[in-house]
């Protein structure tokens, strides 16, 4: 029912069974439910803590978490930590994403290169990225570099795999057109392979950002002096559970924000995809 476009509420109204209850359309009702569910959960949480059913040491009431949030905003530490994580994410994303994109597209276009890289990807991809962290710390030290490299590794794989798949799934007729109109290698890359693979690349980027968020949180828990991961770890050490929750909330919000921005970018750069 949620698939019904909002412009067609009349069809539903003409259904006699729905006539009594249907002063709002089905989509609006669903929207209302989606909006209400987190609010109801928070209310329930608050009540359960206040009546003592939930242990406030592990599940502090939403109102106290909110108070801590305001304190952390006011003293500037929340912003400083968020900014530190964002910077690492950004550089890690560039460092991992750009080579992955170029290599992935080249793999899609070039069979021998695919034969060369595929087994390397297949054997290294399943290694949990967090398990590589000690090695990364050893190589790149405790500074910024190790955190950025962690994000880069996380971003690299999904972008690489999706770019290669994206090119491979391009209809062969487009490559025929390129050849017939004597497009050079670089022109094929620029005018066919890349734009044709963009929808897949975007899925890779979304997965990559998610992976980046996971890895930056882990990486900042060790040897970092700033960042959301540091903030959460530090909160554990000083037993400030509220701060921990604030950290989690901000990370969740960042993930949500990134996916919204990427959806918007996708709509902007893939105008030829039929609206979904």
């Amino acid at each position: 029912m949620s698939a019904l476009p909002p412009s067609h509420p009349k069809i539903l109204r003409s259904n006699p069974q729905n006539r009594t209850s249907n002063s709002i359309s089905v989509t609006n009702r669903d929207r209302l439910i989606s909006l209400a569910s987190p609010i109801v959960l928070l209310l329930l949480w608050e009540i359960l803590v206040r009546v003592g059913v939930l242990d406030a040491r592990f599940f502090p009431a939403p109102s106290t978490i909110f108070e801590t949030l305001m304190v952390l905003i006011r003293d500037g530490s929340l912003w400083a930590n968020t900014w530190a994580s964002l910077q690492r994410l950004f550089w890690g994303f560039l460092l991992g994403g750009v080579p992955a994109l170029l290599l992935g597209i080249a793999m899609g276009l070039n069979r021998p290169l695919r034969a060369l890289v595929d087994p390397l990807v297949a054997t290294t991809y399943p290694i949990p990225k967090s398990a590589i962290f000690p090695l990364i710390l050893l190589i790149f030290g405790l500074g910024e570099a190790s955190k950025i490299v962690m994000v880069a590794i996380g971003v690299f794989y999904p972008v690489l795999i999706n770019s290669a798949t994206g090119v491979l799934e391009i209809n062969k007729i487009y490559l025929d057109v390129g050849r017939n109109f004597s497009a050079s290698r670089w022109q094929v890359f620029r005018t066919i392979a890349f734009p044709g693979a963009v929808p897949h690349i975007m899925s890779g980027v979304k997965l990559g950002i998610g992976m980046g968020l996971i890895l930056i949180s882990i990486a900042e828990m060790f040897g970092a002096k700033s960042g959301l991961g540091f903030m959460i770890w530090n909160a554990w050490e000083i037993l400030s559970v509220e701060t921990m929750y604030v950290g989690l909330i901000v990370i969740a919000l960042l993930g949500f924000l990134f996916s919204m921005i990427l959806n918007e970018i996708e709509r902007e750069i893939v105008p030829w995809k039929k609206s979904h």
Partner: protein
Amino acid sequence: MLAEDVPAKIRLRNLTKSFATGGGTVTALDNVSLEIPSGCFFMIVGPSGCGKTTLLRILAGLDTPTSGSIEVSASAAGRPGNSMVFQGGSLFPWMTVFDNAAYGLSMRKRPQAEIAEVVGHYLNRTGLTKFAHAYPHQLSGGMQQRVSIARAFANDPDILLMDEPFSALDEQNKLLLQEELLRIWEETRKTVLFITHSVDEAVTLGDRIMIMTAQPGRTKQIVDVPFGRPREVLELRSQPAYGELVYSIWGQLRDEVQRARAQDERSVKS
């Protein structure tokens, strides 16, 4: 009608193409020799699977022959050898109508002003000026093939290759596009190699028609089309001579279509 002293634009000698398949080798083209005069609108008709598309793909440089030779006499330097109008679905979905039509010229890095002028001309000739900034998915199948035609003509090649460009269109659209194609072609009278399975289309458009045999594809017969130019499609079709020619070509083709059908049925059984 063609004068006999026109020099050959394309010369094919003993062109053979065979593919290795699971069950052995399949010969798609068998010893096809052919001369196409400069400026000729050359049609190839044949049953489906007779290798006519293979022939076109070899000429387009998208496939290589197993043996035999192709000679194409080049004209002006810097002009591309050939441009192909594909069956359909060959427009880049990520480019606007204008950018699709401009593809050949941009790949050859022509100046922007020239691209705007040439592409503008052919979009105008195909009635697409209003849709220059639309994307292919917003157009009907007929309009998409117009863009494809504009793309090939705008590239200004020596030879135009057309691979059943109208086969996916309905009857009305097909007729309109055939008329449009003839009008645009009259401006330059380039050498055209046009593949179709429609005898009507072959007689309507062509100067000369090659009938191909069922697999393996060979030349069965070459027929000259005696109608002058410019042609009006509907008027042409109302002439008795038109019907007679279609009928006689059909007579030649029918045996081949039946053979192709028998081949299909055998391959289904085995």
